[in-house]
């Protein structure tokens, strides 16, 4: 059979060829039926199944967060977990079980000495971040340091300075919401002025949980309960609130100027000094105030962030978001086709702010938008961390092999121009961390703390 080659260089099987070559088709032809078949194309490359690169990663700190990270990395085909580390034997054993091929060490230095390990994820208690992050950068590793990045402004600044100076390395901070597609989808809507003038913000986090862990070993129990130790803990506002401040400030594109706080131990009277119930009012440059509260004593309302605008309000909850328009707001057009959800608690109908959340999609129920929203922010943060680590290390390696290795200025330029997947940078991480530290200061003293411009400079 003569094959015709089209302009893209592949065979074009036409109807005549098909009829000549097949008796069944001939029969169909006689019966008057024409079978319509798509032109044959070579099998497409399955882009999602490709493993274009791998990164050898070490995880330091194997508490609940560290184990979450291990599990998440374990699902990424680009990650090779080459080392796990915790200075507490039982945690190390548990972590090692989750990553059986990784070398398990109690001393993080042993992990940093391993030249094979290119990147480390630091998920230790916050007060241990500085020492380990500085050592990891010194050892030439790419670093993911969890949020908040430190428990004092001095530590946060030391980490940020070292990270900025490490020009050949990639540093990401644990404000994972910055990598979540739901937030990335919503961001341009808010920044484009869809809400009119943003007039106020609200955030809360409510959960009935003690935050206290028990251990038969008293020393271990003290270590384990670092969140309840006033000396090193940034409290609810640092460990939880910082993530919400980060998202709301990012969406508004504004920096806080002052914070007023209030906090008490209202329920968990177990001798703790770190408040279990807090309130904070964060003032922003544009005059907007964020009204924030968090508690460990009530679960009502769960976690919600809201931005109120003169044309519309955006409500963010469980990695989903809705927009509520004012009656006098201009018609944008797209919202006509958007899916509407009934939010009974609010007695309102919200316009779903989700990628692909159109009426058609809702009818076909492919669940694309739902499944993307259901994935954790950590998953996207890890995925993007691995990608960015590979891009930066490949960029540096290729630059050094191509040009004069002593031309550091050109190397820095080359690295800074590398396109990265969205993630919380060291600057984002530093700024959101110091805001939370200052907010905790305001809560503990029960008053107002001004945030000087210099606070935000690294």
């Amino acid at each position, binding site marked *: 059979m003569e094959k015709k080659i089209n302009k*893209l*260089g592949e065979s074009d099987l036409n109807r005549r060829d098909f009829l000549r070559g097949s008796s069944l088709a001939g029969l169909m032809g006689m019966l008057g039926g024409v079978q319509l078949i798509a032109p044959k194309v070579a099998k497409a*490359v399955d*882009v999602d199944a490709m493993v274009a690169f791998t990164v050898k990663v070490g995880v330091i700190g194997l508490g609940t967060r560290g184990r979450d990270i291990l599990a998440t990395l374990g699902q990424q085909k680009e990650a090779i977990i080459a080392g796990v580390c915790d200075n507490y034997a039982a945690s190390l054993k548990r972590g090692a079980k989750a990553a059986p091929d990784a070398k398990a060490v109690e001393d993080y230095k042993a992990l940093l000495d391993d030249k094979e390990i290119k990147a480390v994820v630091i998920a230790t208690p916050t007060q241990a971040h500085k020492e380990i992050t500085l050592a990891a950068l010194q050892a030439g590793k790419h670093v993911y340091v969890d949020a908040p990045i430190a428990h004092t402004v001095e530590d946060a600044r030391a980490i940020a300075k070292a990270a900025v100076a490490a020009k050949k390395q990639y540093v990401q901070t644990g404000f994972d919401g910055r990598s979540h597609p739901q937030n990335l989808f919503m961001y341009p809507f808010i920044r484009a002025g869809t809400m009119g003038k943003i007039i106020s913000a609200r955030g809360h986090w409510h959960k009935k949980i003690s935050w206290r862990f028990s251990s038969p070993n008293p020393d271990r129990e003290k270590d384990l309960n670092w969140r309840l130790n006033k000396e090193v803990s940034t409290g609810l506002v640092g460990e939880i609130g910082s993530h919400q401040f980060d998202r709301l400030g990012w969406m508004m594109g504004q920096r806080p100027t002052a914070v007023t706080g209030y906090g008490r131990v209202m329920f968990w009277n177990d001798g703790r000094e770190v408040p279990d119930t807090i309130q904070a009012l964060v003032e922003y440059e544009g005059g907007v105030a964020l009204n924030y509260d968090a508690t460990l004593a009530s679960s009502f309302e769960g976690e919600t962030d809201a931005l109120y605008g003169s044309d519309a309000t955006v409500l963010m909850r469980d990695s989903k978001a809705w927009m509520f328009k004012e009656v006098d707001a201009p018609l944008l057009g797209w919202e006509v086709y958007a899916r509407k959800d009934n939010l009974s608690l609010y007695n309102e109908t919200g316009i779903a702010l989700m990628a692909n959340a159109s009426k058609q999609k809702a009818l076909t129920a492919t669940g694309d938008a739902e499944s993307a929203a259901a994935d954790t922010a950590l998953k996207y943060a890890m995925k993007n961390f691995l990608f960015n680590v590979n891009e930066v290390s490949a960029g540096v390696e290729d630059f050094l092999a191509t040009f004069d290795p002593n031309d550091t200025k*050109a190397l820095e*330029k*080359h690295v800074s121009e590398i396109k990265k997947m969205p993630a919380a940078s060291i600057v984002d991480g530093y700024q959101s961390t110091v805001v939370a530290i200052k907010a905790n200061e305001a809560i503990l003293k029960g008053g107002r703390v001004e945030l000087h411009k210099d606070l935000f400079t690294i």
Partner: protein
Amino acid sequence: MREGVPTGTPSRRIQPHLSNRPEFQKKQNKPNIVTLPGNMKTNFMTKHLTLALALAGAALSAHAAEALVKYQSQPGSSVKMEGTSTVHDWTTIGIIGGSMELDAAFEADLKTVKQTPKVAIVIPVRQLKSQVTPGGPKMDQVMQEHMNFKQFQRIEYKLDELTPKDGKFEAKGALTVAGVTKTIVMPVTFERLPGDKIKVAGSTSVKMSDFSIKPPNPEFAGVGIKTGDEVKLTFEWLTAKVKAAQ
């Protein structure tokens, strides 16, 4: 080297380019001691080396004995690949490394070709970045897969012949992509820039299939994309004179 047949050592890792290593550059400049007595160093070792090199030099042709001036690739050198597909045209941009060695006559006027300049160019495949947004990284992955990146991490070019033509030059050289070498002829220009720099620019079209590369047809969100076989290459190569080792 047979055309259309993969060559090269498959397991080769990326190494700093030989000519970039300081010890290599030093050795390269050693013959200067023979031909340019003014550069002679007076230490004991050099005196003995000079004798040895003079003896060795006698065995070399007059050609090779002529001092060549080396120009090294500079950051800012870029290569652009432009292609087509059933969805839209695409562009990737990458960096160029390597070096060229010119004889004195050519270096002086960038016109007189007495001796073909020694030109060796490398292009790291990983640094070829698709300019499409979004989806660029995915396209890069597809391209690397099709170019067998894991085995062949660089595109290489060696100049064989340089012929003046209509105020420009016609460059004939060997282009190696994904381990397959083809001879290509393309027009190029040499331009002197301030600060002992020379810019070499040119453009040509090649076919992916000539290098045994199947034009990719990836699928994104259920949409199959077919890329065209022909690719246009445009390059601007900035080089700077290598200062003699002290």
